[in-house]
């Protein structure tokens, strides 16, 4: 058996409350392009951070060419030949291409200062090899994402990398740029350099990867050659489902079908585009209906919800609520119209950590809860009290800081904030992710209850089971466009996975 470039044996890594990696083993051979896939929270970013020296594993060993190693920091890993290219290019945008490429290795003249002529010549020489012909003196940020990605790659390889980790390198690239990138990856492979390739775009994985490791809930769900794995099987593995045994009801708190799915749409998004993340997406939600939004990570689900909530600057398309067009790009207008978003990223976009539970719940409804600019504490107390009771928010008191609550209770606070505005349509982005089982069941039951009361719900979830049992209808997105819509008996895990896995038509 050939020497592995990098091998991880029995790696475990925990954070308070979460075991992010549980006994993960991983082996990378020379000259291989190895796909690393998994949904959010599967542990791939943790694994990458362990491999590249950002985190130290709690247990397990790393072997570099069969020698045990520990990396104290990313720099140590880099010196050992492991380079990483992040999704967001980790270079200095204001500096020139050449300086970014050669920072720390600038050619010197005899006087000891940087020889800029040689610097630019060297940079030009390197970039030509990567198929980039541009003025290397231009600041990096003035160049296209593809070029920036290529500079990051060139820098990574030029510091004698034996292994390059690419974290969603194509997420901001155009097809032409993707082709160039893949050309370079092929060259790397032929030079014996290995690549760990993280992506959710199935087409890309099948185009360039030799092997695949699927992570699920911190464990290795599958490891093997990619060409032996059918697309739908890969999707099933990523989403944690076995295509052979699906259909086993009752694990979620959803009761199933809702009765009132007729009537005029409450909210209707028509041909919403926001290049390059959304193309021509149309969704509608009727009163009493739970519409699921399916698709892999990065398919445009969160962006669709944000576009409807007025939180994304859209290029084209309209959003109407009860027939009235909502002003674009204004969350306040959307809330007034009765549309409220519970965002995916609780910490960054949801809670206001410095405020109490009470103030967080009342935040969006303040105008309704005050008279001539002075808030009515009695009214706030009443509404906060009723929602804390109804949603069973566990806090020492309404005055406890929201940052001290558990994730599940924070999520309920955000739901209460949306409901307090008197919303008619709720856009719930991964409402049950990262919260404990009990809270999850409660949130699911609440969604049912709200739909029964006549609210419209747009439910985004990576949990297929939740989607199938919770939603009356599922709109499946792929690469920022609607790939299909399933309703009634069609809403099954197989059908969703098949829609995701279907070969994407090449766009014109």
């Amino acid at each position, binding site marked *: 058996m050939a020497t592995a470039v990098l091998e991880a044996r029995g790696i475990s890594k925990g*954070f*308070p*409350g*979460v075991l*992010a990696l549980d006994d993960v083993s991983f082996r990378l051979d020379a000259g291989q392009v190895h796909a690393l896939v998994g949904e*959010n*929270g599967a*542990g791939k*970013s*943790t694994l990458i951070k362990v491999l590249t020296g950002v985190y130290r594993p709690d247990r397990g060993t790393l072997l570099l060419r069969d020698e045990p190693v520990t990396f104290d920091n990313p720099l140590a890993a880099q010196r050992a030949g492991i380079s990483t290219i992040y999704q967001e290019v980790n270079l200095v945008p204001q500096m020139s291409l050449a300086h970014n490429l050669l920072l720390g290795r600038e050619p010197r003249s005899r006087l000891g200062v940087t020889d800029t002529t040689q610097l630019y010549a060297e940079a030009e020489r390197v970039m030509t090899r990567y198929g980039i012909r541009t003025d290397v003196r231009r600041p990096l940020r003035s160049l296209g994402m593809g070029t920036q990605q290529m500079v990051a790659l060139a820098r990574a390889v030029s510091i004698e990398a034996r292994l390059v980790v690419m974290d969603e390198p194509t997420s901001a690239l155009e097809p032409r740029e993707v082709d160039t990138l893949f050309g370079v990856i092929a060259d790397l492979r032929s030079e014996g350099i290995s690549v760990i390739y993280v992506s959710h775009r199935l087409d890309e994985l099948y185009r360039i990867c030799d092997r695949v490791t699927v992570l699920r809930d911190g464990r290795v769900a599958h490891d093997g050659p990619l060409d032996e794995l059918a697309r739908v099987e890969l999707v099933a593995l990523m989403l944690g489902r076995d295509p052979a045994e699906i259909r086993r009801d009752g694990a979620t708190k959803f009761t199933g079908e809702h009765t009132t799915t007729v009537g005029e749409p409450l909210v209707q998004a028509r041909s919403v585009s926001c290049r390059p993340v959304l193309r021509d997406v149309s969704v509608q939600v009727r009163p009493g209906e739970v519409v699921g939004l399916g698709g892999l990570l990065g398919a445009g689900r969160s962006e669709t919800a944000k576009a409807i*909530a007025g*939180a994304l600057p859209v290029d084209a398309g309209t959003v109407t609520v009860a027939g009235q067009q909502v002003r674009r790009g204004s*969350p*306040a*207008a*959307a*809330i*007034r119209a009765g549309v409220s*978003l519970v*965002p995916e990223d*609780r*910490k*960054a*976009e*949801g*809670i*206001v*950590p*410095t*405020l109490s539970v009470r*103030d967080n719940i*009342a*935040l*969006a409804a*303040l*105008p309704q809860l*005050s008279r001539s*600019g*002075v*808030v009515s*504490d009695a009214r706030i107390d009443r509404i906060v009290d009723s929602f804390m009771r109804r949603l069973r928010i566990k806090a020492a008191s309404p005055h406890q800081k929201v940052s001290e609550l*558990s*994730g599940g209770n924070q999520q309920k606070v955000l739901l209460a*904030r949306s409901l307090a*505005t008197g919303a008619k349509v709720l856009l719930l982005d991964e409402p049950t*992710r*990262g919260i404990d089982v009990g809270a999850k069941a409660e949130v699911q039951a609440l969604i049912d209850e709200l739909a029964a009361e006549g609210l419209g719900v747009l439910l985004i979830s990576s949990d297929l089971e939740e989607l199938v049992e919770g939603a009356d209808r599922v709109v499946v997105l792929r690469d920022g466009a609607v790939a299909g819509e399933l309703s009634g008996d069609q809403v099954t895990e197989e059908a969703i996975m098949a829609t995701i896995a279907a070969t994407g038509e090449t766009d014109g």
Partner: protein
Amino acid sequence: MAELAAAPRVWGGRARLLTWLQEYGVYASVLALLLFNVVFTPHFLEVANFRTQLIQVAPVVITSLGMALVIGTEGIDLSVGAVMALASAMVVLYLGYGAPVAIVAALIAGAAAGAAGGALVAYVGVQPIVATLALLVGIRGMANVLVPQLTEFRNPTLITLGSRSVLGLPLVVIVAAVLTVLVAFLIKRTTFGRQLVAVGGNRAASRLSGLPVRRVLITVYIISGLLAAVAGVLATSRLQASDPTSLGLLMELSAITAVVVGGTPLTGGRVRVLGTVMGALLIQLLQATLIKHNLPQSWTQMVQAVIILAAVYAARGRRA
């Protein structure tokens, strides 16, 4: 990375101490200094002394209140000292039309200055520190251009405002106390106050929750400008003279110190009104103590420097 979000905070003894310091340090320090003075400083407990201290601290308290609001939104307002000078210049310029007109003109000038800074921050997206720096330089110059040298005046209304007492309390101090209550009310009881701290605590979440983020920001700077103008008018009426070259000089530093020492974090999301007042008092007391014990004034500034660093360090330790 979602797995990291749920990490509960582990509190060490040191972190707890720092938290305590940030919450109550300013009260403890004021109390300690008071006790020290009661015991060791002759004539400290006399009414005249208290009057003097309070009169001197009033303008600082008023500007600090505005600064606290701005810092609550994760901003900063370097222009407050210059706005004081501008207000003072306006008083002199419009005194011919009577004291009320002069005072209103000064307040309008302060609000306009705040609006200019706020517009740069809220609508153009300039960093608060740069926007208000430009304002500081320009407005101080404008005040100097309007009133190039020290100008004395005799106006009965202004003299009353500057030196009259009601029920033994100087009017200046009463104004400061009333404004403190008003700002506390603004923060605790009004929609605007709640929105202000929310914008400072998490701007993205505030936007998603439909809050008028830009309007809140510009309003905060307008209030800060207004309060600085009030401080400028009061200081002018006490001096019975306008001196735009020196009035309010380095006031921004005193105000920032008072706010930071009072426990309002520079990272926004929280405004401590009483703490800010205490912060201003602490600096005033410190200065008075050093003077009374014949220690040079230079000490005050050095001690002040240490206190600022300690306050910010305590706030930082709390977050880390």
